[in-house]
């Protein structure tokens, strides 16, 4: 490749159709592969290979997470995914085993993270269960090819990158909406990309995913990535599936994705710092939350 190729500047999703026609690429994964390759001066094959390693680590995180019950010293993570597995295996699933698998795997990976398991921080460690829980489960259930699944991860990463450009992926900057909200948007878009290439369908899924979780604050008990983080991963994964299905059904977002992202930043800026990962407000300062934090400090 030409190492001196000009940098591809992406300021928002609305830039993408124009850039795609200029660069003569026809699908969103190909566009993000090319932009990453040009902007990071990396050969295309290396970009693909790097994502193969990410996919491998995502798959391994599920296997590792389900291999044993995950419990933390604080007691806030107490083998939830194991209970979900047993419940589903005993026929308790409310909506069939596919949905149970989504919520169980999201919870398992998030719990695994809390127990010093090996995970992919995509987009963050606090939201690491969403992509493996929702995207990988949908891909498995629909027998999606490895290549198509791999390509969908570029959509997830590309949407996340746009969010990081216009806003932030950090809970300490914009609250949980920036972590689990972004994860849900990225995952919804990637699920759609497993099935169709249409840009507006992918955009709608991402916009729904983020819109539905706007305003979420970050108020972890004891400053740990456990409560409410773990169960938020479950909700963000379920939300991603619902949003992808809405988009695939042809429902269009009224507010464009870029405007939704800007709204997330605006809301994030008005969230007080007590609710942005400082554990000085919200659930962290409930009577029980403070008691747990005090017990941890004494250890």
């Amino acid at each position, binding site marked *: 490749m030409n190492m001196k190729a000009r940098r591809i500047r992406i300021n928002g999703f609305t830039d993408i159709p124009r850039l795609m026609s200029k660069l003569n690429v026809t699908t969103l994964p190909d566009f993000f592969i090319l932009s990453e390759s040009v902007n990071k001066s990396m050969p295309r094959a290396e970009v693909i290979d790097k994502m193969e390693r990410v996919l491998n680590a995502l798959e391994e995180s599920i296997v590792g997470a389900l291999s044993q019950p995950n419990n933390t010293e604080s007691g806030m993570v107490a083998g939830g995914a194991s209970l979900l597995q047993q419940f589903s295996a005993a026929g308790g699933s409310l909506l069939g085993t596919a949905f149970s698998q989504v919520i169980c795997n999201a919870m398992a990976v998030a719990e*695994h993270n809390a127990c010093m398991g090996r995970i992919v921080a*995509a987009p963050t460690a606090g939201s690491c269960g969403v992509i493996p829980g929702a995207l990988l489960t949908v891909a498995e259930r629909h027998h999606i090819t490895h290549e198509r699944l791999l390509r969908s991860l570029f959509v997830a990463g590309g949407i996340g990158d746009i969010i990081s450009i216009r806003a932030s992926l*950090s809970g300490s900057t914009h609250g949980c909406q920036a972590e689990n909200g972004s994860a849900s948007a990225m995952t919804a878009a990637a699920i759609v990309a497993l099935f169709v290439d249409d840009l507006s369908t992918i955009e709608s899924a991402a916009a729904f995913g983020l819109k539905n979780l706007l305003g979420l604050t970050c108020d972890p008990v004891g400053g740990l990535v456990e409560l409410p983080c773990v169960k938020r991963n479950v909700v963000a994964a379920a939300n991603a599936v619902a949003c992808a299905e809405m988009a695939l059904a042809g429902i269009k977002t009224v507010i464009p994705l870029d405007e939704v992202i800007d709204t997330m930043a605006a809301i994030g800026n008005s969230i007080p710092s007590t609710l942005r990962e400082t554990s000085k407000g919200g659930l962290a300062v409930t009577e029980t939350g403070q008691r747990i934090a005090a017990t941890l400090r004494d250890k």
Partner: protein
Amino acid sequence: MGIFDVMGPVMIGPSSSHTAGAARLGYMARLIYGRPIKKVQITLYNSFAETAHGHGTDLAVVGGLLGLPVDSPQLRESLAIAEAQGMLYNFVWKQNLAQHPNTARFLFYDIRNGNNRESGDGSGTFSITGNSIGGGNVRIIEINGHRVDYSGYHDVLMITYQDVPGMIGFIGDTLGVRHINIAYMSLARDAVEATAMAFLKLDAPCPPECADVLRANPNVFNVITINKLGDGI
């Protein structure tokens, strides 16, 4: 950022700043110190100190000092590995609002007969301070009392020397004839000891042969080279 900053890092949980960043700080401190670690005191400040227990910050820092990357499951057993390898460590927990919320300071002991020419202060110690600045990214801000700014994205050369005229020219020429370009350079001096430290970010790694030429200069006390960090570290 970039797509792989979003889709990663692959890491041991639970926190990119308090676990992965902590491990990376230990890893970078090991590289900068550049010798087998016999004894080290680790001071964790502020949020690092408050929530170290639940985040495995202490395990991660020690793991990094042992050379474990941020995605190594061995980080969980780092304290036992340190013991098995005979690496002595102790932790100090501090609150200091003048420091970044996630700060770790490393104090390495026992250097060549207790006479530490590297730090220039004769204390027999070597200190490194760094911050975990989010998303697993870190910044080294202090080495032996000299202010630096290093995040692992460049090849680095650090030289401690007797503060006499002509040393900058010597360093520049030595790199220049080998076609190694200097991207950034800062100097710090210790007036009492009449020593100085040059901190250089390079566009290419400083090869061992070049480092040996620098070391051979009678005014040079110490040369440390660090190659930029690859993926997964």
